[in-house]
Every structure is written in C-alpha cells, then in structure tokens.
C-alpha cells in the first residue's frame, strides 16, 4: 500500500456493485458487534458452557452419542446361539444342574465386547446361574461361553399353558400367560405336547426347560442377554385350537402360534428416554378385555420409569384395536448396562370367547433418523429450549442487537449511510445480515460443534457419518429460522427508538417472558389459544418435524402450520415496522 499523499488525488479504480456494498456493510456490522465488550463477555460465557457440554459428551460412559440406540435388532451385531442342539433345549431333573454352551459371534465390522448372561425370568426363580461372562470378540469372529445352571428341587410351581412358539428360522420361542391367581413365568417351547409334559410332571418326572435367545446389542454397549425359561405346571388348562398369525415387529418377523398371550423384551440402554406403544387388535368375532402389563427385570437393578398411558384394562370390540403407549426413562447410572422391559398382554383368564388377539409391537421412533433426531432435538431445543444456550443468544440480542439501528439513529449516522450508494433496504439488509452473522458464534456454531463431537465419539464409519448429515442440515435450518426470527424482532424494535435499552428490554421480554405471560393469561382467561403467545413453545414445536419427530398437536392444541403462521406473522409485523420507520417516516431526515 502506498503511503499517504499531502495532496488530494483522484480515485482511478472502479467502484463495487450494490451487492459488494451491502456485503461490506454486513461484514463491518458483524465485526463492530462482536468487538463490543458485552459481546465478548457473552461469547466467553457461551463457549464455556459449550466446552462443558463437549466434555460431558466425551466422558459419558456409553455415551450420549448419536447412536445411543435403545433397541437393537437381533443379530444386528452380536449373535448368541447354542453351541449344540441340546444347549437349546434340555430336559433337566429337578434339583440337578446343567451346563449350557453358547457361541457368541461378532457380526459387526469392529471388535466388540459382549456381556452374555442368563437372566431368570422372574423373582420366582431361585436357581443359581454361574458363568455370566464378558468376552471380547473380534469382528467376524466368535467365542464360546459356558453357563452352569442349577435347578432347585422345589422349582416349578406355576400354572401355565404353552404351545409351539418359534422364530421363523425354527428356533424355539417362548410365551407365558397369567392364569387364575398365580403368576406364570414361561415355558419353553417343546416338541412335546403339553399334555405329555403335564403327564410327565404328574408322574414326578423331569419337565422341559428351554432357553430362548433373544436379541443382542451394539458391541459398544456390549450387552447380550439370554432368557432362561423354566416351568412346570400343576394342572392342564383346556384351551382352544391355535391359530397362526404374523406379527409385525421392528426386528425379524416372528411367527407365533399364540393363543392369547404375548411377551416381548425390549432392550433399553442407559440414559435413554423413549416412547413405545403396543397395539392390540381383536381379530376375533366377539369383544374382549385386554390387560396390559409392563415391567422390567428386577435383577438388573435398573431404575426405570414406566408409565402406561391409558387404562391397563381395556375392552376391545371385535375387529377393533387399541394402542397403549408407555414411556421409559432409564436414567444415567454408571453401571447401568440396559434393561429388559417385558410387555405382556392377555385376554383375561381362563378360556375366552376371543379366538385371537393380534399384537403389534412397535416403537414410536421406528427409524434411526427419528432416534437420532430426538436426541439432538432434546439436546438443543428440548426442555423448554435449552436455557443455557438460549439465554446467551437472547442476551446478545438484547444488548448488542438492540443497539443495531438505535445507535445509528442516536448518532445521526443513518443520514451518512443513506447518502452513500445504499438504499434504506440495503441498509436494513446489511445491518440485519451483520447481526445474523454476529449471532452465529453464539448459537449455530456451538450446535454444530456438539454435532461434530457426537459424531466423533460415536465410532461411526464414513458411510454412517454421511447417513447422519441430514441431522446437521436440520440443526442448521432450525438455527437459521431462529436467528431469522430474532433478527427480525431485534431490527424492528431497534428501529423504533434511539435508546437501545427500550429495544433490549423488549427483545428480552419477548423471548424469555412470553412463556410466563402466556401462562398468566391462560390462567386468567382460560383460553387455550393463548399458548400461541409463548414464542419459545412455538419454536420448539415448529422444529419437531425438522428432527424427524412427529408434530404433537397435544402440546399446543393447534396444527403445525398454525405455529408457522404465527411465526410468519411476527416476521411480517417486524418488516412492517421497519418499512413504516424508514420509508414512511424518513428516519434519516
């Protein structure tokens, strides 16, 4: 660059376009905003919280990582199968012990650790299991584990009926039912008929004991469980001929031959919140009462919050169906490796007129996208919009953003801007874009950093990372919408007065106090539509579809497009304010 001259020299270069001038206004505005002391303080505080969040992501055992999968399809990563056919199903004398061998195969593409355990089905089981084992298995390899199971002499007092139950691949399955006053555990599938089994039992002989091998999970989680099902019976309950139905599940299709009872194990990882539902359909010709039970295996010592939504007993008309929802929250405990949740439904005790109930088990979030979206939605926008992140953003808006136009009005700088080759529209665009950019380090950037951190600690390969890019897009889009809304409000309020404090208080109140105002007004007027005043609630609801979470009108009582319309209305009102100030009132006069 040449040094200064003492004389005035004409400019020989070329002038930039309109876009260039607006860009310079934008960049200069951003820099000036970010250089303010208040902005620097807020950025430092915000960064501190982001850093804490990232550390938490990194050190959480099992992780709050992206693929914190709550259910894993059977065989998706690990497969546990009996080493021999006799390990699958064994006749055992009461009071004796057996040894069962299993092959644990790692079907994933990286090494993993599997905990293979024999889990007794209920507190009625008092037998001893030795051999719970944690083993490391290389990708594509397998190892054998052995369990020794002691069957106590007095075991086996329960009342049950059972029939053929098998997976499509032929493996035996299990089921159980409630009958009379006694709790029924389960009975393994047997190639023998129930009548034969009962006869064996009555004769004091050995009764069948079967092993069911349900699903296994992510190698990172390292949990595999085996359900040991043991049973005898005291009497034979008559039953109707069975029918075979297909039951759609989220895993491999199971073909059940079921009379009236269904059990399903759901594997839930720690620190997981999820919603599930069970749909029961009466496919018979008469009405039936259905009981739904949800419980978890008490031996796993896992605090689980389960709340069935709706009455546990429901009468279902012929050909009708009923959906039960329930929530699970496993909390975050260091040694919590997961939980088995058992869903049980039946059509009442004893013989029933209901010939069949078709039971669908499905998750509320069927796809990985939805699970992933839910996690980040909760992290970024959940909890009434994550306060610590939202607070910095609103404070930045209230302190720095509020002065955006009002300082120029106060300093009479607007006349100078507008005497340049800039229209008032250019001025507003440049200033707004400048604020928009200045807000990114305190809003969008931390969110993207959290996404990157989550990916980094999730052990995903490149293909899997690419599969999550939609989430990055959703995060960015949600913040762009937020910033657009907030900048609109800030610019409008800032253009109203030459005192920035008015705009600051207005911005702060609008975004942080609207919830309180909405609550108070609803308490007074008892009008549900007053929820629309709650900006934070509107934003939260509006972003659900972006994160692959179904919009829940129950939260606000309006369809999603109403929230969008309200938001659009706010932006339009802001635009009208600016037009009035700059075009009609000639603010630079």
């Amino acid at each position, binding site marked *: *660059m*040449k*040094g*200064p*001259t*003492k*004389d*005035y*020299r*004409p*400019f020989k*270069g*070329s*002038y*930039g*376009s*309109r876009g*260039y*001038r607006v860009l*310079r*206004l934008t960049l*200069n505005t951003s820099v*000036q905003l970010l250089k303010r002391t208040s902005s620097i303080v807020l950025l430092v505080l915000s960064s501190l919280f982001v850093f804490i969040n990232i550390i938490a992501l990194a050190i959480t055992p099992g992780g709050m990582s992206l693929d914190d999968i709550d259910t894993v399809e059977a065989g998706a990563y690990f497969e546990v199968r009996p080493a021999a056919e006799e390990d699958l199903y064994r006749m055992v004398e009461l009071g004796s012990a057996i040894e069962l061998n299993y092959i644990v195969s790692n079907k994933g593409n990286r090494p993993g650790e599997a905990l293979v355990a024999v889990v007794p089905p209920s507190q009625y089981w008092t037998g001893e299991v030795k051999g719970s084992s944690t083993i490391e298995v290389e990708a594509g390899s397998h190892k054998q584990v052995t369990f020794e199971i002691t069957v106590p002499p007095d075991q086996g007092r329960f009342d049950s009926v059972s029939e053929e139950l098998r997976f499509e691949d032929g493996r035996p399955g299990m089921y159980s039912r409630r009958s009379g006053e006694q709790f029924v555990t389960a009975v393994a599938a047997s190639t023998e008929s129930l009548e034969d089994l009962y006869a064996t039992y009555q004769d004091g002989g050995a009764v069948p004991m079967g092993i069911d091998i349900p699903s296994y999970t992510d190698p990172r989680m390292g949990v595999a469980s085996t359900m040991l099902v043991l049973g005898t019976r005291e009497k034979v309950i008559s039953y109707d001929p069975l029918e075979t139905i297909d039951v759609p599940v989220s895993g491999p299709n199971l073909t059940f031959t079921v009379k009236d009872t269904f059990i399903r194990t759901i594997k839930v990882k720690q620190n997981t919140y999820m919603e599930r539902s069970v749909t029961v359909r009466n496919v018979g010709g008469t009405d039936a009462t259905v009981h739904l039970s949800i419980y978890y295996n008490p031996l796993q010592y896992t605090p689980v919050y389960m709340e069935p939504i709706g009455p546990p007993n429901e009468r279902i008309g012929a050909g009708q169906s009923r959906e039960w929802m329930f929530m699970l929250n496993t909390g975050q405990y260091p040694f919590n490796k997961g939980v088995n949740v058992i869903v049980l439904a039946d059509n009442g005790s004893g013989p029933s007129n209901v010939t069949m109930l078709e039971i669908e088990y499905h998750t509320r979030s069927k796809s990985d996208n939805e699970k992933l979206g839910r996690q980040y939605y909760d992290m970024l926008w959940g909890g009434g919009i994550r306060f610590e992140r939202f607070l910095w953003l609103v404070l930045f808006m209230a302190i720095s953003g509020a002065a955006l136009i009002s300082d120029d009005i106060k*300093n*009479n*700088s607007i*006349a*100078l*801007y*507008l*005497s*340049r*080759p*800039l*229209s008032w529209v250019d001025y507003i665009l440049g200033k707004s874009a400048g604020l928009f950019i200045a807000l990114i380090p305190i809003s969008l950037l931390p969110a993207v950093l959290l996404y990157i951190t989550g990916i980094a600690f999730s052990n995903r390969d490149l293909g899997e990372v690419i599969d999550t890019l939609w989430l990055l897009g959703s995060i960015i889009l949600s913040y762009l919408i937020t910033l657009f809304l907030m900048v609109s409000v800030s610019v409008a309020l800032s253009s109203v007065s030459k005192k920035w404090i008015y705009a600051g208080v207005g911005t702060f109140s609008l975004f942080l106090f609207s919830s309180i105002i909405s609550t108070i007004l609803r308490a007074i007027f008892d009008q549900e539509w007053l929820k629309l005043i709650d900006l934070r609630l509107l934003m939260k609801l509006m972003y659900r579809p972006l994160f692959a979470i179904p919009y829940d009108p129950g939260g606000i009582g309006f369809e999603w497009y109403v929230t969008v319309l309200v938001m659009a209305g706010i932006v339009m009102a802001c635009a009208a304010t600016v037009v009035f100030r700059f075009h009609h009132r*000639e603010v*630079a*006069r």
Partner: protein
Amino acid sequence: MLRDGALMDGKVGNNAVETYSLSKLYGSIQALNSVEAKIPKGAVGLLGPNGAGKSTLIKTVLGLARPTSGSFSILNEPSGTGKATIRQKVGYVPEADCLIPELDALAYVRYMGELSGLPPMDSMQRAHEVLHYVGIGEERYRPIKTYSTGMQQKVKLAQAIVHDPELVILDEPTNGMDPKGRQEMLDLVRDITRTHGKAIIFSTHLLPDVEYVCDHVLIMDQGNIVLQGGLKELTSQMDHYDIRIKGDGKVFSKILSRLGFKFEKSGSFFKVRTDSDILPVLYPALKGTGIQVRHASRTGLTLEDLFMMKVKGGGTG
C-alpha cells in the same frame, strides 16, 4: 442586473443540481415551496436563516427525504434514475454529528469508502490519503469520540471525499469550530473546489465563509429561493451611496424620502440605496437647507447587504 429568483447562467444539463417546482411538506410545515433552482458546477453557497429550507433542499436532492411534489436532477441524473448512481458521485458532510464514536478515524473513513463501493485495499489507501489531506495525522488511530469538534468536522469532510465524488455537499461545515480550525476548514473546502475542480454546495448562515469560498450564491428564505446568482455579479450590479452630512439629519431624511430613495440612517451617516447617480438630484434639493454633504461615495453591495435585503426580518432566527 439580475432579477430576483432568476436562473443563473450555465448551460442546461450542465448544472450540479436543478430543481423543478420542488416542494416538501413536513406535516403542515412547508419546508420547500416550488423551488426552481439551477446550481452550477462550481463553488455555490447556500445561504439562509435557520429554517429557510437549506438542509431540506440538500436532503431532498440526496434522496434522504422524498419530495412532496416536483422533481430534480443532480449531476445530469434525473431524480427518477437509480439513486446509487447519483450518490456514487456525491459526497455529503451532514450538519449533525454523524460519526461512529467507537471507531477510529481511519476505520471510519475506510468503512465509508467501502460503502461507497471502493475495494478494501483502495479504501484503506484512500482513507489514509484523505485523512492526511484534511490534516488528521497520527490521531487517526484514536477513537473519534476523543476528537475535538474541529477534528470531527475534518473527519466528516474526509469521509465525504474518500470516494472521490464530483460534487461535495457541505451542510454547516464550520459550525462550532474555533477561528483557526474554521479557517483551516475553509481553506480545505476552497482547495477542493478551486484546485481540484470539485463542485461544492456550501450551506451555511455565515456570510464571510461563503464570500471566502464560493463563486455563486443561492439565498433561501421560508422554503423559497429569494436570490441566486454569481457573487461578483450580484455585488457589482446593485450598489448604494455612503453619505456623511453636516446639518440637520431629520431634514436630510425628509429630502431623501421626497426624492424617493430608500436609506438607512446612523447618526450623520446615511446609506442610500440606488443604482444610479444620486448627486445630480441631491445637490439641487439641498439648496437653502444649510446641510452640507461632507462625504459621498458610490459603493457596491456586500453579501450581507443582499442577505439583509432579501431575507424577511434580516435573517434573524
């Protein structure tokens, strides 16, 4: 002799600013009243008392205020064309404080250069040059809020010329400056127009400033242009007699009135307004009155005289 309100000379289309029945209302206040002005390229003083409409005229032609009716052209660009094109060629020194106090002068002037379309490097270089030109030295790295009024005015001038405009509009640029600073500012403005050939419109109510800098003058009052023309032409074509007498001043006043002259009396001094030779009619009228004319000289009008004559109330206010 130039008629009041007559258009100045200059070729059509070659003026810095032309207005056509330009009016501006602020509510019920008529700030501009069908103003017809042709402001030539050169150094033009825009004179008028406070509230005369000077700033409104400037802001209107800059596009900062929309005219209620009428139109204008600036640097041969009609008002309907893109304002950006016009503003690229115009520099503006507002009357009010307009600086960004937190910025240093260099950053501020560079910023304004960029907003005018200068590339970043050129803008930085031009900022250094014009700040040096207006006399802001190492102070350019200090925040503007630490500057004296005079320095701030210089920074305002620097930002107005950083993009090398054809026309510089200065609205009260010497307001609040001390005599030394004021003289420096006037020298700068005169250098800009006389040495570097920039057209300027110099709005002020300080008549000596206009006399020092400008070649042309345009006087406004109550939203109207009451006089416009070349300064030399105006002051040479209209003149008066300065007369000092010995004798009865009241009688002399009556004689002047009887002869149809307008005059101002201050003790034994009389300023008699006339553009013709007064003495051939005055001496015969004084015969027998005992009044002696001790001094009589024909003198041209000053700008102040013009101003006082044309502005209602003499420009007070």
